[in-house]
């Protein structure tokens, strides 16, 4: 089980979004399971080729993931995963 936390910014589109635990074997697995509960959220985090969107960050514990294209950074039980927006825009 991993713990998943979200930026407040995503709650504008998914008001029921809250910190939770997920049984998953990979980052993509985490996102796909979230997408069942919060329909469409995958498209907010990833593009249609399953790459992390340019201005979205994922942290595993305190570490920014390295593989934004295929999401191969490994996760293990007990990890905390943060979905955050990059500080960009104007």
């Amino acid at each position, binding site marked *: 089980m991993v713990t998943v936390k979200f930026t407040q*910014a*995503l709650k504008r*589109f998914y008001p029921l979004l809250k910190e939770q635990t997920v049984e998953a074997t990979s980052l993509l697995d985490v996102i796909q399971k979230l997408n069942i509960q919060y329909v*469409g959220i995958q*498209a*907010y*985090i990833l*593009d*249609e*080729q399953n*790459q992390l*969107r340019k*201005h*979205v960050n994922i942290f595993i514990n305190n570490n920014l993931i390295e593989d934004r294209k295929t999401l191969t950074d490994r996760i293990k039980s007990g990890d905390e995963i943060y979905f955050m*927006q*990059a500080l*960009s*825009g104007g």
Partner: protein
Amino acid sequence: MSATHLLVGTRKGLAIYHKKNDQWNYETMHFSGIPVSIAYADPATHFWWACLDHGHWGVKLHRSNNQGKTWEEVAAPAFPEGSEIKEGLPATTQYIWSLQNGGLDRPGHLWLGTVPGGLFKSEDNGDSFHLVESLWEEPTRTTDWFGAGMDHPGIHSILIDPRNSDHIFVGISCAGTYESVDNGKSWTIRNKGLYASFLPDPYAEVGHDPHLLRFCEAKPEVLWQQNHCGVYRSEDSGLNWKEVSDKTKNVYFGFPIEVSKTDPLKAWIFPSKSDEERTAINGGLSVCRTDDGGQTWNVFRKGLPQEACFDIIYRHCLVANEQTVAFGTTCGNLFISEDEGASWTCLNNYLPLIYSLQFV
């Protein structure tokens, strides 16, 4: 029919103006804080559409069946898995640059143009979109199309012939105009007569930059385009283009062009200063109109600021409906004319950057 609403897609949401007692008044802002690249009211279904360009969360598409009282998000058009802009460069929908119904006789049909150059079609009123493979696989796309102002090519103009909904034109920057007479199954290049000063061969078949493509609804074989290199008109459905610029009146560089729905000789452009600078000309705003098919142009300034202005207007930001004309600028200024552009009234100086206008 006279318009009662003006949809204003802006950098910070969809602003609605409402005409009541002959006055245009600001009504509300939908999607506050979110860029709206295109706002579109479909005359076939009366649905309103908002194409959102979230900085962080990607391109989204929303529709409303009650004039904006409520909105519903639908799945944005997505490229099939494995699609590539070029070899090794995955294709993703980066921007929605045009949305057009498939003809009044086909309610629920929609065409949607994107950066990086994908044309999408829906036949279920946006419940689903599919990539129009015939244009995506067009042989010139990977060799001769390129970005202009965007990282990749974009489809900003989609025209459906009111007499025959199988007859379609798309405008692409940079590539040019493509025509289909079989509902998008096949495409023909229509750039003959255009000059592209930015190409090694200015008369190349493909690689032109039609900033916007429009036609006269009452006579759709008459096409107009504000090109990167002048204003052009065609009287034969794009088989041949003829330049109708007038540099003495600054009718040359700009982004939008609007065409009368009923008079194929009448069009408006908003001149801007040169490709190199892209600002208002001599610090003042003006609108130019021709009533004779581009042989002569009249310059109108009444009611428009004539000093210390730096506005330009983007391609989807000059619209006309009967006698009423409106434009919105990069500096958030919104002007309206009730006499075909001869005189202007400012509706707002403080909107966000404006991306699109449509009368409803």
